[in-house]
């Protein structure tokens, strides 16, 4: 079997370093397989979080050769194996141990977003009429598996840590806010939060979140930019304000 060298970040909340492990791999293996092989044969105390190994639980998020990826969905034959492969934890979050990042800040951020608030029913029996075309727009965002790769790659989180300072909720939660805000039965108003507290203006549309999304959600074009436009409607468009006053705009 061919051999490869993995440089795996080993450490904890106080710091760490890369350590090299040479191991064999075979056809069809993914990065998580190789990490498990190293864990079994050379580093029993190597911490790695994983669960489904099918790209659906979002647990094994890490950075492979500097790119945020699910380790279970990164096949070895997609990597340049003439050099060593680096595997490190997500850089936007504190490290628990080795490849395990502490992503719990995301659960706190999610609680800040106003939940679904239904508009009055369309019918006397308390039900709504919803068209497939309207539902589809927000359904795309339900594919999110909360792997937080988008949070990791976003430079506002990664380089400036604005998600830890409470100034920016990050791509994952703009997707969540877009899902709620575009829902055909939702009546909640989240625009003031999105503009001020959630920092939608910090997104500068580099689309890195869209690139790394394992569920191929078009995060920037379908979630963040429409939210920016909704915020612009209310806060940055004097003409829209005039139209709203004369009853020609402002309807969600």
């Amino acid at each position, binding site marked *: 079997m061919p051999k490869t060298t993995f440089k795996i970040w080993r450490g904890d909340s106080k710091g760490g370093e890369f350590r090299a492990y040479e191991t064999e791999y075979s056809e069809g293996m993914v990065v998580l397989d190789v990490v498990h092989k190293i864990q079994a044969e050379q580093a029993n105390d*190597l911490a790695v979080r994983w669960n489904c190994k099918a790209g659906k639980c979002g647990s094994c998020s890490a950075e492979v050769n500097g790119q945020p990826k699910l380790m279970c969905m990164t096949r070895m034959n997609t990597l340049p194996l003439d050099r060593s492969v680096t595997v490190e934890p997500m850089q936007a979050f504190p490290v628990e141990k080795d490849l395990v990042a502490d992503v719990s800040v995301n659960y*706190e951020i999610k609680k800040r977003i*106003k939940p679904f608030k239904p508009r009055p029913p369309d019918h006397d029996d308390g039900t709504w009429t919803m*068209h497939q075309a309207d539902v589809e727009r927000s359904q795309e965002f339900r594919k999110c598996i909360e792997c937080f790769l988008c949070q990791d790659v976003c430079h506002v989180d990664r380089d400036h840590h604005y998600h830890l300072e409470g100034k920016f909720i990050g791509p994952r939660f703009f997707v969540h806010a877009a899902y709620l805000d575009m829902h055909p039965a*939702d009546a909640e108003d989240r625009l003031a939060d999105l503009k001020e507290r959630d920092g939608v203006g910090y997104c500068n549309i580099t689309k890195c979140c869209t690139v790394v999304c394992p569920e191929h959600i078009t995060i920037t*074009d379908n979630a963040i930019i429409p939210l920016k*436009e909704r915020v612009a409607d209310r806060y940055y468009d004097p003409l829209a304000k005039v139209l709203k006053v004369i009853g020609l705009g402002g309807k969600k």
Partner: protein
Amino acid sequence: MHSPSPNPRRAPFPMSADPTARAETLPETLPLPTVPRRPFLQTARTDRWWSKPLVVFLGLSAFIVYSTWAALQNAHFEFAGYLSPMYSPLFFDPGAGAPSPHAVFGAQPSWWPGWIPLYPAFLILWAPGGFRFTCYYYRGAYYKSHWASPASCGVGKAQKGYRGEQRFPLIFQNLHRYFLYFALAFLVVLSIDVYRGMWFGPNHDEFGIGLGTLVLAVNVVLLSGYTFGCHSLRHLVGGKLNLLARRPARLRAWNRVTWCNERHQLFAWLSLFWVGFTDFYVRMCSMGLWADVRIL
């Protein structure tokens, strides 16, 4: 290989006591990431991450240099019925002698201060220039290629502080929709130019189609593909509505704008190149270096 460092137990991330409660603020004791931030242009990426921003840098810079040079020429912007899109609409003819048939208001006005040179291209180029500068696609592209914010995904940044588009001055990017309104008007103007490019002869009364007519027409098609894929237009025609399906006309419009929007990057580059090429074609014909081919 030395033994792994011990794993000191540290306090878990502070979670709310009531998991269902809405947290208005985040806990104050948030631990910072352990893996140190990478310095400017440093990354663990092994692919050619620099190639795309480099191509964008060269492409956008080349267009800016060429269009500025072309706007400063004040000559060779028309040939037969053709008018360069960089000079359209032509408000005043900057040349001496008989004014251009394309000049909307004729020759340079007498009230124009003589010590200020008249560059008709600069009177109009702010609108398409502003449309592209505030375009969501170009913003993402030039923030990477020209400002390295960041240079590419997962690559270290130079900037310590960051204001993004949340604060002055880039908060003005939110005016993109106003540039869209001008861009839509320009499509009408450039379509009229295609029509005028179908008339030849000294009096422009001889119908025909030349290669230049097709060049002008392709320019309108590509600019339409770019303009009708605008994110702001997508929002205005229907994206702002949650109950879009109840308005079939707007749903159809939204679907068509979405089709263009999914190809926004493609149309952005094709139309950018073709605007430059159209000016170049007219310029070459006007200078007598290229002979325009009459098809009809």
